[in-house]
């Protein structure tokens, strides 16, 4: 009896695109850009994953979810590898992922605005004249302000809209 051919990589990527992020189930692991590589090594499927934040507690759950999803599609020999370099950046969140975030009530990251640890821009930020403009994901107004650079998960900051008065999460840039 012939062994069935292993699934094509495009098929595997498609399956992974159906696995939701455990913390923000509106987007998938591929939307988030944390699946860095998928390849067959002999008869073993090797999936390479990068963490978002080094202490993100979702990392373990993500690995379990990947394994469960691929096994449910009949992949038997499977290995997950962690890759730290290059470090994950919010720039890797797909355009589709950004739309899904917005629809879910989370303002997507504004690329190129990551903190760099150089304090030069601090005075402007303290004075409230930062040029970072975040549109409210609820009403679309740009009359918004930062409450805290940290939020409900490591990847988010807390903002509020001064037009519709709703608080919202901003997926901060790293």
């Amino acid at each position, binding site marked *: 009896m012939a062994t069935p051919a292993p699934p094509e990589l495009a098929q595997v990527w498609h399956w992974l695109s159906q696995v939701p992020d455990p913390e923000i189930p509106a987007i998938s692991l591929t939307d988030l850009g944390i699946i860095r590589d998928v390849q067959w090594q002999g008869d073993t499927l090797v999936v390479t994953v990068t963490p978002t934040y080094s*202490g993100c507690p979702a990392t373990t759950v993500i690995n379990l979810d990947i394994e469960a999803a691929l096994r449910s599609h009949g992949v038997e020999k499977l290995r997950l590898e962690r890759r*730290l370099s290059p*470090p994950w950046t919010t720039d890797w969140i797909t355009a589709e992922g950004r739309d899904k975030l917005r629809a879910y009530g989370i303002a997507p990251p504004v690329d190129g605005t990551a*903190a760099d640890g150089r304090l030069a821009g601090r*005075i402007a930020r303290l004075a409230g004249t930062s040029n970072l403009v975040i549109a409210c994901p609820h009403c679309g107004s740009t009359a918004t302000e930062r409450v805290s*650079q940290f939020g409900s998960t490591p990847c988010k900051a807390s903002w509020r809209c001064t037009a519709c008065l709703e608080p919202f999460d901003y997926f901060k840039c790293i």
Partner: protein
Amino acid sequence: MTGAAVAVDQAAYFDWLCRMGDNCLILGHRVSEWCGHSPVLEEDIALANTALDLIGQTQLWLGLAGEVEGKGRTADRLAYFRDAAQFRNVLLVERPNGDFGTTLMRQFLFDAWHMEMLRALQRSADPRVAEIAAKAAKEVAYHLERSADLVIRLGDGTEESHARMQKALDALYPYTGEMFLADAVDQAMAEAGIAPDPADLRAAWDRTVGQVMAEATLRLPDGSFQHRGGKTGRHTEALGFILADMQFLQRAYPGGVW
């Protein structure tokens, strides 16, 4: 990717990696003590997130330490089953939390060093160190911006907040010198190109701290006395209490999982 390409005394390398990991672990644990106790919700969340980043970085550093040591010790094993004399963190990070201002001052003095260290480590001869540093630097950039902002707000705040921040600075400043003191371990790392000579980070740290303290209307203390000992395992009594709290479960139920 292996570390075999970098010729360095492995015992010294293990010690140095424990210094990096233990700084993150002990400060991360200290900051986590605030969870549920902060003055406002947003600060509670920010402190918990900072602690989480530091514990995540601990796993990377101590994980690599265990790999370099080659005796099968994991990051968890190193965190939970060493006693105080085996810990290599600087004394600054084990200082008690004190009030909110003291916690933020300690954080800022450490963050300013941490940022410079991680910048330099991204050029490490060992790619395993460089990639951890690149990952951690992105997180620490946010820590530093936040702690600097709050030191300025509280220093240049009310009479009460200013007085508390000055008191915190006076108490903590004598613990900062240890971060820049090089010993044989640091020299071995610098010679192997793994890490910078810590003394080389001093000028940039002085600039950052000087600038922020000036904006915060705080005065750097006179006097040159500096506490030392943490990097070689001579700790203050504070560390024992941290370990009693942090290690209890694994000591009572070794290998326990849930």
